[in-house]
């Protein structure tokens, strides 16, 4: 593990993101090293998705720079960025039918040439990813027959097939039951400990406390707090950011945050 010589997975330098005339973040600086898990917290409409899309290079920043593996997105050869970072977008409706396996294979797109077809290796990668999300027996099912939670796991499996170095996850736990919430976060923790970087939008403060190494808390007006879990997750700061009083409850092994 020569982590020290590799560039950070993701870095933001004086990054300002706007939606219309409203600031999402002003002058954000942070670095995501291999092994780090960043959770972005903030109230509805604070701009978490917009920020995540900016970090994914899909949206221009108002000012500042996003560095993917040490370089701005524009400096990577076109299409290569998709081998380095993957995005789990919020679920979108499907208008056309496809099988689960076909859908998962979409994640191999960045690795295939214009005329290539997915081969047995690609299928093996896709089946492994499906198995890791408990979908291996679903490979031939049509996507519209899946439940919401199953579709979400399929979207995650598709992202895993992409095998990027940086995982950007927009509400990865949407539609998932408790067991799969923990299983998905455990899986990304394993990937992070193997050298990936993970940045995700979550709404669950207690899961954030359990899985994050760093937290970015947006106040909804352009202000932000970035730091380690211990630095950012305090009842006072969370209450201010969410506009609702929260209380920290210690149960001996962990501190839980509950609405007051």
């Amino acid at each position, binding site marked *: 593990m020569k982590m020290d010589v590799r560039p950070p997975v993701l870095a933001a330098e004086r990054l300002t993101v706007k939606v219309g005339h409203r600031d999402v973040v002003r002058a954000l600086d942070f670095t995501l090293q291999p092994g780090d898990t960043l959770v972005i917290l903030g109230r509805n409409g604070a701009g978490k998705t917009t920020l995540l899309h900016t970090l994914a290079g899909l949206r221009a920043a108002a000012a500042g720079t996003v560095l993917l593996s040490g370089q701005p997105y524009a400096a990577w050869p076109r299409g290569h960025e998709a081998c380095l970072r993957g995005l789990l977008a919020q679920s979108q409706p499907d*208008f056309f039918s496809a099988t689960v396996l076909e859908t998962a294979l979409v994640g191999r*797109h960045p690795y295939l040439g214009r005329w290539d077809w997915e081969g047995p290796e690609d299928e093996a990668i896709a089946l492994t990813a499906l198995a890791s999300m408990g979908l291996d027996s679903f490979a031939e099912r049509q996507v519209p027959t899946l439940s919401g939670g199953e579709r979400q796991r399929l979207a995650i499996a598709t992202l895993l097939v992409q095998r990027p170095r940086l995982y950007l996850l927009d509400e990865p736990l949407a539609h998932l039951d408790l067991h799969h919430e923990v299983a998905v976060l455990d899986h990304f923790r394993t990937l992070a400990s193997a050298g990936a970087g993970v940045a995700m939008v979550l709404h669950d403060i207690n899961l954030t406390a359990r899985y994050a190494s760093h937290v970015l808390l947006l106040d909804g007006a352009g202000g932000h707090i970035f730091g380690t879990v211990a630095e950012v997750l305090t009842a006072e700061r969370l209450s201010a950011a969410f506009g609702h009083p929260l209380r920290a409850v210690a149960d001996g092994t962990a501190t839980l945050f509950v609405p007051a």
Partner: protein
Amino acid sequence: MADGHTAARHQPVSMRHMRLRARLVIAGLMTAALVAFAWSLSAGAMPVSWHDLLAALGSGESSMEADIVRQLRLPRAIAAFACGGLLALAGALMQVLLRNPLADPYVLGISGGAAVGALGTILAGATAGWIDTGAFIGALGATLLVFGLAHGDGSWTQTRLLLTGVIVAAGCGAAVALMLSLAPEGRVKGMLFWLMGDASSATRPWPALALLGIGLLAALPFARELNLLARGEITARALGIQVGRLRMLVYGLGALLTAVAVTTVGSVGFVGLIVPHLVRLAIGNDQRLLLPAATLAGGVLLCAADTAARTVVAPIQLPVGVLTALIGVPVFLFLLARHPR
């Protein structure tokens, strides 16, 4: 497709099966195309036996049968096949572009514009060649108008494009109705035939056939990207696709294919809507297979429909668009009832 590899320890799943099936379907469609051509060339007021048909096509010698086959039926069969393929290909592209399975080549006002152009030239008393020119200019005009209006501020949402197209098409419909009511009696029938779609006047089918080949070859390199586009813009962009460029290509190509088809045979309905659907049901939605299969199926359907249109109630010739609509409406309703989503 890496068929050289044996499927290792992994159970071969649906993908290989799907592709095999798709290739069988495409081979079947090629056979169907040959049969449709043979039927189209042999059937008519003067039936030509298959033996004479081969003789007429194979040798340059002149006989009445050979002249009918080579100068009347062959251009018409090629025109019908080419335009059916153009419309089906354009329909498949539009359905991906708009992420809407109900989209067809005409949804963005292209046929409306062509109709305004064609009927305008008929109303002005122009000859057949000018009608084609008018239709083509009208189609391109409507395309640019919709594109300009929907894309004016740089944003591009499917809904906005679709609504703009629907409104422009409605405007063209009003203009068409106005011209029909103003037209002198003698020209109305020609106008109606044009509107319903009619291959009888298609004497120069080669541009349509050439464009069919070029269009398919231009679309196929982007077929896997289209698969991703069908899943949504953010997903496609996150996987490295230049969505803006791809949409321009699909829109421009779809519009050009449609414009040439309506210029050649008028606005034949339902081929561009039904054929991609039928093919999707048979082989799935992988554009790499769907685009060529839909192109072939559209060609076969229109070639066969046109032959039926000029033979079922001979000597009266029906406009082929009436037949495709008569076939298309029940088929579509059946599909809709089978897939209640």
